[in-house]
């Protein structure tokens, strides 16, 4: 068994699977020996098994009906053949395979193998892709053949050999999502996730409301919070049925939105110029670095002094946090662009401005969106602090005043609402990023380069 696993691990398609899957594949492999001159299978027969050559040499001749670049090939230990057994649709042998020496092979049932690979959520795809690569690169067959290996993501296995062959059929984002969702439901994950939630809520409920452990009993309990949150007539004045609740949510969202948009509008261009022009960076970046280590929240009193009213200081704080994150990440994004892209653009006759527009801006995009996601996070972070210290209305204000006025369940309502709204806004930024960077999404769906 051990030996079989070792052998499988040396072959191209099985190198990538998880140790667990490898063990399972070894479990369904059967050792067989053939003597010199034996024919293992010939073209036209139905294909049931995939083979791995363990020792000896084989002669592999692809039938002339298939358009292979090279038809004949000799196989050595570690080579994989008989891959027609995992094709989608009709499984018919495409080659004659005969032994030029006494050989030992591993025989693996194709249907069972496919099943195992499909179950390997992490590496099954890679193994199947590896099969189609093997077919096109080691057996010199056109993509039309290589693509018959079912690929869960419908990843194209294209090679340069076949002119005129449609190179890639891209799975739409939708099928991809559906596939992932289906896989997820079938895996143990959702149930384990429920266990996790149960543990969290259960321990909250038990410690606070059932056992009334010391210290815990002072906290608002699960049922109290839930009843309060959904009550039509809340005891402490805030539930999903009161307009005041939505007013607080709206005020917070509006503050974050203003600050975030302002930070993006100023931070992205600043970051782009910082990354692009060395002179500009050498003059401006030191000042930037001088201010950055000061925690955003240490600005609170200064912000209150500088800006009149209670609204502007909070927005200023929120803006400041977002601004630093956005500008810094955008600058890093520009610096991360491979020099050969800018050089290639200059080579192709682009001027400095065209390089900025066509290379610098799109090239920095992945980092910009990472920056924007961080920026939304820190925006909420400093908004809460700002609202707790100064400011009126808003979720941070709710949390703080509920504490001072001893409306404990409302504190939790405020916290949970913050979590939900915060998560939703960063998800929105992520979706916007994916929408704007189709190229990156597709590249990643195929496992990158």
């Amino acid at each position, binding site marked *: 068994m051990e030996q079989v696993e070792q052998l499988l691990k040396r072959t191209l398609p099985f190198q990538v699977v998880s140790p667990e899957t490898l063990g399972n594949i070894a479990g369904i492999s059967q050792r067989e020996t053939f003597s010199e001159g034996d024919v293992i299978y010939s073209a036209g027969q139905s294909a049931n098994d995939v083979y791995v050559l363990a020792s000896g040499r084989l002669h592999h001749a692809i039938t002339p009906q298939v358009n292979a670049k090279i038809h004949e090939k000799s196989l050595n230990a570690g080579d994989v053949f008989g891959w027609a057994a995992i094709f989608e649709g009709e499984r018919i042998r495409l080659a004659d395979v005969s032994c030029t020496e006494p050989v030992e092979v591993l025989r693996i049932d194709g249907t069972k193998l496919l099943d195992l690979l499909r179950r390997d959520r992490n590496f099954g795809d890679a193994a199947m892709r590896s099969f189609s690569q093997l077919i096109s*690169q080691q057996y010199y067959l056109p993509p039309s053949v290589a693509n018959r290996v079912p690929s869960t993501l419908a990843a*194209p296995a*294209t090679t340069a050999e076949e002119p*005129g062959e449609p190179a890639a059929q891209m799975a739409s984002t939708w099928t991809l999502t559906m596939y992932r969702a289906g896989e997820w439901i079938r895996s143990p994950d959702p149930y384990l996730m429920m266990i996790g939630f149960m543990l969290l809520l259960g321990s909250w409920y038990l410690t606070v409301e059932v056992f009334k452990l010391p210290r815990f009993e002072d906290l608002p309990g699960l049922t109290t919070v839930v009843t309060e949150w959904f009550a039509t007539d809340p005891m402490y004045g805030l539930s999903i049925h009161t307009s005041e609740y939505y007013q607080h949510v709206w005020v917070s969202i509006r503050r974050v939105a203003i600050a975030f948009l302002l930070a993006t509008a100023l931070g992205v261009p600043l970051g782009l110029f910082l990354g692009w022009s060395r002179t500009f960076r050498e003059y401006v970046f030191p000042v930037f670095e001088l201010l950055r280590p000061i925690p955003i929240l240490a600005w609170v009193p200064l912000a209150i002094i500088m800006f009149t009213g209670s609204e502007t200081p909070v927005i200023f704080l929120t803006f400041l946090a977002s601004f630093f994150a956005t500008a810094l990440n955008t600058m890093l994004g520009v610096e991360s662009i491979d020099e050969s892209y800018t050089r290639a*653009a*200059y*080579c*192709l*006759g682009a001027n400095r401005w065209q390089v900025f527009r066509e290379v610098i801006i799109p*090239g920095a995009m992945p980092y910009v969106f990472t920056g924007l996601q961080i920026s939304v996070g820190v925006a909420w972070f400093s908004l809460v602090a700002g609202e707790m210290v100064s400011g009126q209305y808003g979720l941070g204000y709710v949390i703080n005043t509920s504490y001072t006025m001893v409306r404990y369940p409302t504190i939790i309502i405020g916290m949970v609402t913050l979590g939900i709204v915060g998560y939703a806004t960063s998800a929105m930024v992520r979706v916007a990023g994916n929408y704007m960077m189709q190229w990156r999404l597709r590249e990643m769906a195929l496992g990158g380069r």
Partner: protein
Amino acid sequence: MNAMLEKVKPRTNEARYGAIRIDDVVKIYDPEGAAVMAVDHCTLDIKAGEICMIVGPSGCGKTSLLNAIAGFHDITSGSIHMDGEMLCGPGKPKAEPGADRIVVFQNGALFPWKTNLENVAFGPMMAGKLSKKEIHEKARAMMADAGLSGTEHNYPGEVSSGLRRRVEIVRALMNDPKVLLFDEPYRALDSLTRSVMHESLLEIYYKNKVTIFFITHDLEEAIFLGHKLVIMTSRPCRPKKILEVDIPHPRDYSVLTSPRFRELLEETSEVVHEEARKSFAAGEKEG
């Protein structure tokens, strides 16, 4: 579409442009006071339409020479002329990068955020002389000619690496360059894909005769592709041996097994190996 093809085809005749003369070029890097000589009094003549293969150990300074021609770096002394016009030389240490000399990069530099078609169309779009429709039509025709139909709307990240290299060459040819500069473009490919790429490069070359300046450390690749073979010394780099490859073009893969190919390989491999050994020893000292 057909009319477009007609316009592409006439380039088949012999190249009249793209002769390069490298004259006594020296390149010294001086990053932190420690002067490092990369190119040492290098003189080289490349005829128009010739495939000139520069062979040398990794890091020997051949890329500095390519960067000087492309206009990415300046030179310390000497001069480089193209078709009698000075690219860089006394009073003008750095050449202007331009669409008449296009580099095909080591790791490929197709813009991953543009589709293959947009990549191919990039040069003419920047020049802005033709309308977008005309440019895309020409790009499609050239891609079809190079066997790239069907991949126009894929992003480079979605197609195989061999295919990407081919798109990159087509992107360069779109600009009617006089010289193509290859910086070890096939280094990262496996040997099978590489052999396919060699044939496809020659195929494209026979259709569009341009001067090719090709850097490599693979001697077989150099002999198979080149008209002229320049073996460089290890850092600083200077031509050590210049050789005309007298195997007639057009060539295909049968050349690899021909006796003349073997002879040339034997004749040169000793020289190359010696330089590689020197550079390895030097590298160990640096480390």
